[in-house]
């Protein structure tokens, strides 16, 4: 490999949307290692052959964030936003816990599937409500989903009667806490879903059409794309993915905490999408970027906790990250960098001109 091709490869890597996300993850992990050199150590549990360690915990925590981040990527790519994902997680948790609690059969796989299916059905319906309001009624996406963000937690409270319902179901719990060939099931599931969604949107014209809507809805309609149906599909998909995230997050403790499950996770989703290099103005998305973004958020959560800061303070750090990312995306900051790069040749040109004049 020649030096030139190596630098171009390097340059290409730097311009990948997820490059800086990976750099940030490594930086955070390095910070943790400085505090505790054994942080990255992973061991195999001798009893069941499962991997245990901080890295595995991060993967496990990242799974629900990945789900809502994938949904949010698609919604943001259409130029919209879905603020209701956190509340939908609570709804999914409430529905599944109530169902399992009522069914009472803690060993049955069928009951666990039914609970998950019912939860996903209801979040799909709520996602469809968002979609109808945005696509057919023409409300601004953030206000339409804001209503459900507000009401969704209320719906979860009504479903559980204001209680934090607990239930027991071993198959359901296995989704969040189980292991498959030593790796957490929840992470494998998340990766599979990310690959599936990515395969569907990139192998078909779906992804392109979603981006077309985000760039210019009118033009995309004239080009023969039906924005309304696509928007509806996108919001339903976001609802279902939020439902999966909800199932994942209640499954690990088998309790739905109606005021805390999925609380403020819409920011995590937005953050993951922005870290992944997508523009908040819509028109482009990167699922691999959102995937890395979700991993970064899980790492950030763990790191803040590990450094001894109260977990309720993490939003402040995330807010700072999101502000910095927004600044980096902004035209003004980019033009600063551009002028700085151009300044040198401009100055030398001026010099030669002066010299010519003198001569």
């Amino acid at each position: 490999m020649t030096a030139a091709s190596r630098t171009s490869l390097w340059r290409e890597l730097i311009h990948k949307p997820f490059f800086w996300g990976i750099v940030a993850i490594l930086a955070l992990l390095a910070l943790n290692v400085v505090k505790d050199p054994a942080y990255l150590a992973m061991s195999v549990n001798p009893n069941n052959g499962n991997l245990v360690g901080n890295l595995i915990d991060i993967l496990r925590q990242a799974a629900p964030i990945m789900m809502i981040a994938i949904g949010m990527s698609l919604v943001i790519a259409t130029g919209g936003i879905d603020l209701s994902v956190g509340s939908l997680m609570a709804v999914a948790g409430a529905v599944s816990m109530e169902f399992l609690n009522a069914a009472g059969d803690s060993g049955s796989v069928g009951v666990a599937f039914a609970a998950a299916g019912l939860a996903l059905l209801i979040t799909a319906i709520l996602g469809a409500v968002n979609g109808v309001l945005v696509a057919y009624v023409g409300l601004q996406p953030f206000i339409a989903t804001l209503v459900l963000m507000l009401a969704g937690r209320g719906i979860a409270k009504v479903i559980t009667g204001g209680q934090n319902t607990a239930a027991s179901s071993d198959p359901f719990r296995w989704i969040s806490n189980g292991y498959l060939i030593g790796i957490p099931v929840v992470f494998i599931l998340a990766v599979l879903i990310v690959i599936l969604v990515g395969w569907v949107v990139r192998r078909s014209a779906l992804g392109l059409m979603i981006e077309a809507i985000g760039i210019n809805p009118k033009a995309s309609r004239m080009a023969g794309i039906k924005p309304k149906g696509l928007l509806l599909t996108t919001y339903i998909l976001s609802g279902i993915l939020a439902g999966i995230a909800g199932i994942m997050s209640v499954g690990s403790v088998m309790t739905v905490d109606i005021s805390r499950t999925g609380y403020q996770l819409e920011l995590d989703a937005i953050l993951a999408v922005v870290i992944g290099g997508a523009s908040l103005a819509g028109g482009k998305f990167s699922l691999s970027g959102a995937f890395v973004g979700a991993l970064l958020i899980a790492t950030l959560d763990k790191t803040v906790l590990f450094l001894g800061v109260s977990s309720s303070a993490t939003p402040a750090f995330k807010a700072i990250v999101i502000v910095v990312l927004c600044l980096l995306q902004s035209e003004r900051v980019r033009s600063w960098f551009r002028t700085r790069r151009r300044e040198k040749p401009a100055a030398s040109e001026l010099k030669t001109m002066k010299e010519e004049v003198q001569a």
Partner: protein
Amino acid sequence: MTALTAARVRDEPVAILDRVRRMIQANPSVLPTIASVVIFVGMVVYGEVAYGRILQASTLSNLLINNAHLIVLAVALTFVIITGGIDLSVGSIIAFSSVAGVMLANAGWNAIAVMVVMVGIGALFGVVSGVLIRYFNVQPFIATLAMMFLGRGLASLLSTKPERLGEDSPIRWIGVQLKVVDGPKVNDLVITPAVIIAVIVVLAAFFVLHRTRTGRTVYAIGGSESSALLMGLSVQRTKVLVYVISGALAGLAAVLYTARLGTAQNITGIGWELDAIAAAVIGGTLLTGAYGYVLGSVIGALVLGLMNVLITRDGGIPPEMTTIITGGILLVFVLLQRAVTRKKE
């Protein structure tokens, strides 16, 4: 332009109806404001008939006392929404500002200084969102969403348990109930300095928005930013200004709320941005900007406050339904606005 002219008492009731009809025809966007006035009156009448003791001095003064902070927030959001923006950070500004304020007061700071700092904290948040939006073209809801999480996080960094304001703190004076009319039994007309401050804020906002050049610029930005720029209006300065106003008023709302309650906590004000947006929207402020009335937002805040009173009085509605009902009302009004604006298109 104001909605109140429609409600001004005339000699013949027919003339009022005629005036209202003409006003709606000329400017359909007053419809949501009129609807919210009708709803407010309807709620009062329904409450009086169904539960009684609504239309009396003590209930109405409690309505004002308990919602003084919400009225201030609704006014704040009115400014921002009229420019076509949004401020999602007001709730957590209140959390951070009130926790910081109570801690400073307990550390022995002068009460006036503490209150100035509390308002200043809000204004500072507003400056940051404003600069992000104005200089870096960040979408308003993203910029203020970031401020929302920053405020909540900073408040949690300060303290995660309820901070109590000292019993003898002069700040509490703002929440002291003063009897204006001594009615029979407990039916007194009561007022607190907080209510007076809220009324002053409303009047000042009314003056600025409807009677000054700045106010007209705010409306012009919402109508069409590029047109406003071409007209030579100070668009950029005003854009930052509305977020500073919104933040500072959120800081002021923190003062009013803390003084009444006497405690502050990092979870104070969760969801209040939604209440404030709902109040402004119910009061007839269009989320797309350019239309809205300060007094309409006040009515909107009172509708929400009265709704809480009615839900409590009813007793049959579980309290967790409150957010669903608020969301439902917000949705109905947004749909109403959508219908009105679509007709104009």
